[in-house]
Structure formats: structure tokens, C-alpha cells
């Protein structure tokens, strides 16, 4: 039996392993040093004790945090910056979008910005409208930055290592409500390449393309549907930008049906891009219209029943799939 770990531990291990191997890796963010408890969630715990000044807690100054990461990366370091919650990327968007993502291009390749910006988010924690948003579509729409969102501890570990290795800026999105969910422990040093999706479950009737916490919900839905003989393939995108077209297209070519699922709201979301591309590539070869599930089109509500109704769940995914497959089910 493999040993178990949590996403928090896996991320901590990835940072530790990376820093041990490469002295150019440095870490900054609010409360990340051990004097400040190694991060509000403990992701960076122990690192400052082990690596000293390479780990720095910062003032609450997100522009300065990302700016410092960018500058240090231009000078040869590989900074991992934490923006505590994804909603707070909003105060650092100039640094992320106008600078980190563009300096390689605008300098004609003379400089580059190999930084990782770790950030967490996700509904389900009763923290309301300004602390729960998934904003990955914004960054995927931005040339020059990669976007990664792991679904379990081993994935978090392997993808964070690859994100740190990567010569380009990476926005690394962690789901807060699943931080302490147990999963198989990663194999030390094992990287998961960016840009490669994974078939989290094989199936033949319909493909779900998803990522982050929704992978678990999709798998649960697939499991439930399997009891009715429905065979659902679940593709975990892992890297949202650039996304793995080949894997997605192969899967949908096989199943003939696609449902995209993410926690971000559906309109103008990641699912729309995937649907648009798959529709174009597999025109005339789909058995039913591509459907998309996403969070409700509103700020994440505080009130528990509303918050529970905000994001897709195994149950709503299952229902959506039944409605897609119902013509077949009913004849």
C-alpha cells in the first residue's frame, strides 16, 4: 500500500526538494517564513528554518511581492511567490500581466521571468465573495504565462516541481478546501510535465474535461454513473494553459461526447475555449452537443446553501451527464 499525504504536505515537500537541489530557488510571500508560522496554511513551514534568508515574509504588498519575484528572476534566481488568495492577484495584475508575462517577448528574448506564483482559492470555506474566485481564464487568455492547477497531492508535488523548473512564469492554483484531503504520496523528485493532461479514469460514453478540485467531483460522478453501465472518461487537464489538445481531442474522438467542468463561472470560462476547439476539430463527429458546467454567475455567496449550490458537484455533474445521454437512456 502506498503511503498517504495531503496537498499541503506535498507542496511543502516539493518546495523543500526543489530548494535543496537548486540554490537559486527563493520563496517570498505574506507570512511564509517560520517566524510567521510558515504560511497561513503551513505550505512553506520549515523552509526558512532550513534555507534561511532564501525565504522571506513580506509586508501586505502584492505588487511589491510579484515585482520582487520578477526582478530577482531577471537576475538569475527562480522565485516562488505566494499570493495568498487568488482574488488578491487583482492587486498585482500589472506585474503579472504587463510584466511577468511580457518581458521575454518585449525584450526580444534577452530576459525571461522564470517565476512561480502560487495562489489558493475555491468555494466551500464560507469565506464569501472576495476570497473564493477561480480566475484562471484571465491568465490563460494572457500570452506568456502558464497556468497549472493540480487535483491531488502527488499531482501537486509533480506539477509544482515542473513549474519551478519551467523557464517561463507559471501561475500555480491550489484549491483551499481540499488542502488536507489525503491522497497517495508522490515519488520523490518525480516531475509531471507541464502541458500534459492525464486520463484520470477511462471510459467510452462521454469525456469530462476538468481540473483542480473538480476532478474529484467528476470521478465521483463517473463512479456513480458506472453503476448504470455508463462509461465516463475523466481527463484532468492539469495544465490549463497551454492545454493538452491532443489528449482531449483523442478522448472526445473516442467517446463522441464532451462535458467541461470547472468551478469558475461558465460564461467566458476555460470550458468555452475547450468546447470551441473541440467543436471545430471534431465537427460532424460529435454524438451530442458539448455541454459546460461552471460555477454560478455571481460572486461566491456566503450563505451555506447558496455556497453549496454555487459550484458543480458530483451530483450536478451526474445529472448533467444523464441529461446528455438521456436520448440513449430512454430508447
Amino acid at each position, binding site marked *: 500500500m502506498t503511503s498517504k499525504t495531503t496537498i499541503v504536505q506535498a507542496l511543502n515537500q516539493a518546495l523543500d526538494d526543489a530548494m535543496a537541489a537548486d540554490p537559486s530557488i527563493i520563496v517570498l510571500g*505574506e*507570512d511564509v517564513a517560520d*517566524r*510567521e*508560522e510558515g504560511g*497561513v496554511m503551513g505550505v512553506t513551514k520549515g523552509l526558512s528554518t532550513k534555507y534561511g534568508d532564501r525565504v522571506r*515574509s*513580506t*509586508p*501586505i*504588498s*502584492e*505588487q511589491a511581492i510579484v515585482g520582487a519575484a520578477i526582478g530577482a528572476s531577471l537576475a538569475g534566481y527562480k522565485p516562488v511567490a505566494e499570493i495568498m488568495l487568488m*482574488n*488578491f492577484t*487583482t*492587486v498585482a495584475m500589472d506585474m503579472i500581466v504587463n510584466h511577468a508575462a511580457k518581458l521575454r517577448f518585449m525584450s526580444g528574448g534577452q530576459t525571461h521571468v522564470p517565476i512561480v506564483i502560487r495562489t489558493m482559492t475555491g468555494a466551500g*470555506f*464560507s*469565506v*464569501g*465573495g*472576495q*476570497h473564493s474566485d477561480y480566475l484562471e481564464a484571465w491568465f490563460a487568455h494572457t500570452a506568456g504565462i502558464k497556468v497549472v492547477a493540480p487535483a491531488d497531492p502527488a499531482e501537486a508535488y509533480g506539477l509544482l516541481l515542473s513549474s519551478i523548473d519551467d523557464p517561463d512564469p507559471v501561475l500555480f492554483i491550489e484549491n483551499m478546501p481540499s488542502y488536507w484531503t489525503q491522497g497517495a504520496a508522490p515519488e520523490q523528485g518525480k516531475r509531471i510535465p507541464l502541458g500534459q493532461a492525464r486520463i484520470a479514469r477511462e471510459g467510452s460514453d462521454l469525456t469530462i474535461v476538468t481540473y483542480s478540485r473538480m476532478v474529484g467531483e467528476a470521478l465521483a460522478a463517473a463512479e456513480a454513473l458506472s453503476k448504470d453501465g455508463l462509461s465516463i472518461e475523466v481527463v484532468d487537464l492539469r495544465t490549463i494553459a497551454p492545454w493538452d489538445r491532443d489528449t482531449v481531442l483523442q478522448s472526445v474522438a473516442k467517446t463522441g461526447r464532451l462535458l467541461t467542468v470547472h468551478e469558475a463561472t461558465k460564461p467566458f470560462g476555460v470550458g468555452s475555449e475547450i468546447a470551441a476547439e473541440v467543436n471545430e476539430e471534431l465537427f460532424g463527429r460529435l454524438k451530442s452537443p458539448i455541454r459546460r458546467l461552471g460555477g*454560478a*454567475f*455571481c*460572486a461566491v*455567496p*456566503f*450563505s*451555506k*446553501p*447558496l455556497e453549496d*449550490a*454555487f459550484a458543480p458537484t458530483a451530483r450536478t455533474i451526474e445529472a448533467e451527464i444523464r441529461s446528455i445521454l438521456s436520448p440513449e437512456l430512454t430508447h
Partner: protein
Amino acid sequence: MSNYPKPDAATLVKIYEKMELIRQNDERAHKVVKAGRIIMPYYSPRGQEVIPSAISVSLTAQDYICTIYRGTHDMLAKGVPLKLLWAELAGRVTGTCKGKGGPMHITHPETGVMVTTGVVGSSMPIANGLAWASQLSGDGRVTIANFGDGAANIGAFHESLNMAALWKLPVIFVCQNNRYAEHTTFANSTAVERIGDRAASYGMPGITIDGNDPDVMYGAAKIAIDRARAGEGPTLIEAMTYRFNGHLLGDDGHYMDKEERQRAIAADPVARLRKRLIDEGALSEADAVRIETDISAQLDEAIEFALQSEYPALDEIRRDVFAHELA
């Protein structure tokens, strides 16, 4: 500060009543959350009671405040109705915001609570706008922008103070320096000893005062409020205080300096003011007890009301996104 206006005995009693309300309200929040009766992120303002209490006695219901996730004390001092507040904390449709905002986003325009933000620093730019409106309309209102010591290092602080000074806005920036920003001490996040001194960067009056001293806090606030109302522009007040608890409920604050924390708790401003009022004869022990009991009863009632209330219907998800309900 010796020439600050002083609160009279009746005003001090009013201040005390607000403080006691905040104290008991906080006690209840801890109890209710720990008992699992309400699930919410709760940022205790315990220890910071004097600040909004001593400010609010010089405000009208029409004056505006903007506050933060830790601002329950600011709201209570301003007069947010307890039932609506608690119903919101419980996520019920009877809450100030129909349960949709929650503890970090309490809004109650009737009592001037215009914005509660969960984003550090963001109370300030919006407060300027409220003050700008008052300046344009001549309605004589003032706006209080509350924020923490950690927030004094974010860009929005700088932009807001410069604009307020330039436009002579009737706004008062109240930095509640409780010595911590999450797990980070004031000294470890701030390159200067007094946030109050930063006012000089904007040609604005700025002071650093003992925010736990009701006389000083009242006097400083009164001067700033009068100035603002008279059209003389903004003031920055750094009110030194102390966060009795960890950053949020569940964080025991073990990383905080033990002695300093004990000293602060021993000097509990609520107990101190109570004792003083009784010592000075402004309040009898019996009156004090009556105040406490009244508040306790109101809280019982409010919490009961909250927990008996309905949750919002699911279609609330489609309402209030835009003026017109979504299809």
C-alpha cells in the same frame, strides 16, 4: 493631546455601552462558532473596542464608515441592528445582506455602514468616493475609513491619502494598529515606527495615539471629524491598540509575544472604563449591571432570531448580480 476636547460623563457612558456591546458580541461569536451553531470565518476585534466607540459618539447615523473583515466593532459602534447583523453572520435571508455577503461584507446603509471589505486596504479608495459625494452635495457627512496596520503598506493606502489630501475630502483614515497582520508583527512589516507619521507624505494632519484610551481617542476623533465637517480636509489617525486573539477564530495566536499579550489583556479597556466610570460616579454598579444584562438579552434575542430565520432561497444566486434578475 492635553488640549483635546474631552468626553463628558454621559458621553463616556455611551462609549462604554458600545464597548460592552462589542465585548459581549465577541464573546457570543466565539461561543456560537465553537458550538458549531454558526459556521463563519470570525476575526475578533476584542481589545479594539475603544476606537470605534469613541469615534461613533461624534458621528450621526448619516455619516459613513467603510470597514474590514475585522470590523464588527466598527459596525456595532455605528449602530447596525443586532438582529440583522447576526442573521447575516448566520447566512440567513433576514440578514443585512440576505445572507449573501456574510461576516466579511456586512453592509447597512441605514446606519452608514457602506462597505465591509475582505481585501486589505480596499476600504480607503471607496471611502474617498463617499467623502467626495458629500463634498459635492454639501450634505455635511463625514466618512471614516477603517483599516489595519498591515494595510498601511499596500498601494491603495498611498493613493487614497494623496487623493484625499489633494481634494480636501471629508474623510478620516483610522489605522487600527493592533500590532499584527495575520502572523506578522507590525515591526516586521513596516519600515517606520509610526503610521501616523506617514500623513506628512500627504501634507495631512496625522497622529499616533493610544487608541485604547477613550479620552484621547474621543478627542482626536472629534477634532478630525470637526475638521472634516468644516471642509478642512482629511486626517490620519493611527490608533494604537492590541489584538487580544489570534488572527481569526481557530488561530490561538501562540506566535504572539506572550508577555505583551498578557499585559494588553490585563489592561482590558472595557473593564478599565467600567471601573473608572463607577469610580468616578458616572455609572453605578447597578446601572452597569443593567447595561450588561440588557445587552446580553438583546444578544440572546438577536442570535435566536438569526438561527430561527430561513436561509435564502436558491434563486437568490440569480438576484442582485445585476439590477435585473438573471434568467
